[in-house]
């Protein structure tokens, strides 16, 4: 099995690559459609901003590729945000795979970004994955129809979404210790 880590133009693509290696999974980092076609599953990593990531994907003609793929696809943080219709971050039109808006956290007293370990209450298949995970985000989804995991910071927000072959997680599984490894194993088991 080989996972394609989609180069979305951000820094630190290696973290997710290393985390797959630790699980003994072969992976390739690429922005080439041809190369990504040859993989068994895709990961959209979570670094940068929604605007920059969407521009980069558009310029590489990867937006249609991701929209049309049948491969199991995991979007992490920003990678999850771009699965939605729209993000308030840079007022960005996203891929529109999952309906809904990505909003900015607003709070007079809690610091933004949310940075650190927060608890996820998982539903259905994700119930056993309820645990603490590492978050670093200023934007969030409050989608309820596709939510399979919830957390609370300032307000209740969606920390895991799934639609068909697309899974999105607001946290960083590659930085979430054993809990994160279990989450990645779950994603891989779906391929």
């Amino acid at each position, binding site marked *: 099995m080989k996972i394609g880590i989609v180069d979305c133009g951000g*820094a630190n693509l290696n973290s997710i690559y290393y985390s797959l290696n630790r699980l003994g999974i072969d992976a390739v980092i690429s922005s080439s459609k041809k190369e990504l076609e040859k993989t068994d599953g895709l990961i959209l990593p979570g670094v940068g901003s929604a605007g920059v990531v969407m521009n980069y994907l558009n310029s590489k003609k990867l937006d249609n590729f991701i929209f049309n793929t049948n491969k199991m696809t995991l979007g992490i943080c920003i990678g999850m945000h771009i699965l939605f219709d729209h993000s308030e971050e840079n007022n960005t039109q996203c891929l529109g795979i999952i309906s809904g808006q990505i909003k900015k956290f607003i709070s007079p007293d809690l610091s933004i970004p949310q*940075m650190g370990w927060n608890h996820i209450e998982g539903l259905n298949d994700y119930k056993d994955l309820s645990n603490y995970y590492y*978050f670093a985000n200023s934007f969030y989804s409050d989608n309820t129809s596709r939510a399979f995991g919830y957390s609370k910071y300032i307000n209740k927000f969606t920390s895991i979404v799934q639609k068909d072959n697309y899974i999105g997680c607001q946290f960083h599984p590659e930085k979430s*210790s054993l809990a994160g490894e279990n989450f990645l194993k779950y994603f891989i088991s779906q391929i």
Partner: protein
Amino acid sequence: MLTKRIIPCLDVKDGQVVKGVKFKNHKVVGSILDLAKKYSDEGADELVFYDISASTNNTMVSKKWIEEIAKNINIPFCVAGGIISIESARLILNSGADKISINTPAIENPILINELAKAFGSQCVTVGIDSMQHNDQYIVYSKTGSVKTSFNTKILTKDWIMKVQELGAGEIVLNCMNQDGVKRGFDIKQLNYMSDVINVPLIASGGAGKEKDFYNVLTNPKISGALAASVFHNNEIQMTDLKNFLKQNNIRIR
């Protein structure tokens, strides 16, 4: 809700972890990778690596050990020391660090904070502040990696905190120098005094000696985490015991 973070700090000099008292007399305490793995496996929430040789010799940190850390540990980590430009920050982030922390270069060129935040996002940009009490005032110190270079910037710490936040710092580590390495507890008075102007996560640093010290500082809702070095390196406090103690005392802990 978010849990409070316990952050072991590893001072790195010439490729090894060292620890000094009040920023001097550095002694080797172990290999970078061994200690990083140990703390990560024991439940540390995050790690900070300060390359003290890099910042005092004006050289860039070596990329190699950062990559080794990224390959082997599965929690977030921050690298500090010698980051003077977007390029040097990019090199470190691309090597696998989650955040970079700047201290002296931010004082010398404050706009760098803004440039880094724009390039990589505020969540990647930590500003470290070394603060020392003089009479009734808290003052920012610069180049504290060595006693020979350390100097008083005459900038008030509170003013500097407000400035770095305006410029886009995503997190602040406040090293209270009067307490550093002396294990008499975190400088609660100073941290509380700074709290009213803080609107990003604030990490308390300097002075941890016993489990209760962590409790005392983490009860302040404005403080997101506590950083310590020697109590962990010398095995005076075990990570799992500390976290159990804090949980039992109703601090939100992973």
